């Protein structure tokens, strides 16, 4: 197919959605590690709520991606860690510092 405006727009959109899924995958992996540790009850509840929201967002993204082409396999998308930028604000944070900031942000 020629690179028409529609084709280009479709490809960019698909890239965007795949990026969103990859970041959700990255954040979900981080959350799973975090939830394996000890936390006060309220913090744990917030982290669990965040996990539920991310899973729901991922499900709707999967469905949207399948509207492009039912033959796509969104389950094979890997993980990105760009989502961390929001919490580290450009500074390199240690894993524990990031975890503290992340948990606090969910409050």
């Amino acid at each position, binding site marked *: 197919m020629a690179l028409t405006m529609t084709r280009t727009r479709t490809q960019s959109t698909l890239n*965007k*959605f795949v990026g*969103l899924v990859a970041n959700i995958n990255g954040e979900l992996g981080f959350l799973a590690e975090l939830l394996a540790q000890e936390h006060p009850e309220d913090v744990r509840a917030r982290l669990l709520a965040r996990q539920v929201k991310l899973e*729901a*967002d991922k*499900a*709707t*993204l999967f*469905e*949207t991606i399948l*509207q492009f082409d039912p033959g796509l396999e969104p389950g094979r998308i890997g993980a990105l860690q760009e989502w961390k930028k929001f919490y580290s604000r450009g500074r390199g944070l240690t894993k524990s510092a990031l975890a503290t900031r992340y948990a606090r942000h969910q409050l």
Partner: protein
Amino acid sequence: MPESISGQTRASPHVRWLVNKIAVVKGDLARVDTEQALLEARRQRLLHALNALESVSAQVSRPELPAIAPVVQAHNERYGGRGRLRTWIRDVLQGIAPESIDTFTLLAMAEAAFQLEFSSDKLRQNYCRNTLGRALRAMLTAKEVERLHDLETANKPGVWRWVGDKAPTLAELASRADEVESWHSR
């Protein structure tokens, strides 16, 4: 119910009429139910898709999109892309030229080619008249096909034949006139 000499029961005309009518109405109702169930299933699928799109709009920080997007009767990609139905009709007619084809046969071929399913005869008729008919009439205007049937003849399917670029021009006809003339004088 009166009994005939042969021992068979014979229902009176009004009873037969009633049974017949009840059967027909039941049949129509069954069709409507099937159609309604198919439409309801489709509605649920579309609502689900819309919910997913709304959620994704919120995820890309544009939650207002569902409210501002207008309603568009989008092109139905039933044939795998825009213009494919007409291309297919063109191929069929070109393939059988100079033979002609009637609309009903074309409908049956389209059903097989595109796996079309109609829940009722009415929808099938609508498809034949509105979709296939419209495409054929547009091709008629474009002088790609010619109409072999009489428009005044009711209850008969249309008959169509490919014309394409095979139709001779006036100049070609004139140039062949001598040829015909010599054949006549033989």
